């Protein structure tokens, strides 16, 4: 992978002078930005779906001109900026939810009927934490509250094994 980020050697540029050099530099920047966007996209999965699309310059493949490469680079940089902001907001939300979960676990009676899913705190799976009364209506009247932990859906591997 690093060789894609390396600058192309000057001897490959035989004609076109500075503009070809500029195009090569822009292509290198596009490669670096694409790598960054891909990393953000993978980091966000499955918590967040990031839009990584950049409108295509052409309907068919061709050698892009300098200004077209600049447009692609700027659009990628914009996408990265938006993706970083979305990830930062998501991280903050998950941190707040984790703190709320800790408070709920410490004092279930103060968070009656509150339900926090694993997705809310950025964890994989579909389980959740639910503040519920012990022994149903009796627990409600007596104030016997507890947090019930759901382990979520069965694993897909187990379902596949059952189908076999």
């Amino acid at each position, binding site marked *: 992978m690093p060789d*894609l980020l390396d600058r192309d050697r000057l001897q490959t540029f035989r004609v076109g002078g500075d503009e070809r050099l500029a195009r090569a530099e822009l292509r290198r920047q*596009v490669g670096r930005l694409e790598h960054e966007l891909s990393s953000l*996209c993978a980091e966000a999965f499955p918590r967040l779906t990031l839009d990584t699309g*950049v409108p295509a310059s052409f309907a068919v493949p*061709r*050698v892009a001109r300098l200004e077209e490469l600049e447009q*692609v680079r700027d659009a990628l940089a914009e996408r990265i900026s938006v993706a970083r902001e979305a990830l930062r907001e998501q991280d903050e939300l998950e941190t707040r939810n984790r703190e709320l979960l800790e408070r709920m676990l410490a004092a279930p009676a103060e968070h009656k009927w509150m339900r926090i899913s694993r997705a809310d705190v950025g964890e994989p799976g579909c389980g959740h934490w639910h503040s519920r009364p012990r022994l149903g209506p009796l627990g409600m009247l007596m104030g016997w509250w507890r947090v019930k932990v759901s382990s979520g859906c069965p694993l897909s591997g187990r379902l596949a094994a059952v189908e076999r």
Partner: protein
Amino acid sequence: MAASKTSRPDLHSEPLPRQGWVAPHIAAEFPGLGIAWVELESRRTNSPEPVRRRLRDLSDRFYGSHAIHMRERPIPWAYRVFFRQIGLDPDHTRTPVEQLALDRLHDGAFVSRGMPADAVTIATVETGVALRVFDVGKLRGELCIRDSAPGEALPDKPAELAQGTLTIADGRGPLALLFGGPAADREIDSEATRIAIVAVQVKGVPQAAVDEALWIASAAIAA
């Protein structure tokens, strides 16, 4: 002992990859761009059981997270970058390996489409290298990557190509767009007896991966 001798592959019978050329001004713009192919006997047929079993095995070890993290791997990423550099959006015009990944998630498996398409699917998913298939009977001369000249069009397409379109061409003219053209199995008809499996290499894709892709596809066709 005897069994191991008979199961050893005969290296001399394997088709040797041939290297095509890239127009000098295109090669100067895109160092690392290349084209290589192997020619072998094959017809459009249903895939034999070993090939279909291999597709099922590939399906079983390929999940949604693989599709997302695929773009971080060096070879799929190299194709994404190249797509950006030639003005295509890889989230719209998918790279070959990402298109296969998307089809796998959509269909629930790598669905068998017969030979040689299944061989191309296996080799592409295993290596990430972009492959396509042509009918050798319709090729003239060496394969190359070049931009289209004024007045040129793709075979059986009346519309003239925009000047400068990057194409795979032979001695007569453009055969297909470099990427984003018709699917691999549509480029050969039922009368083809000899096919060329063509690999398009871009910067960041090692030669060993290209050779491996061609070898895997050839081996699958010979199965």
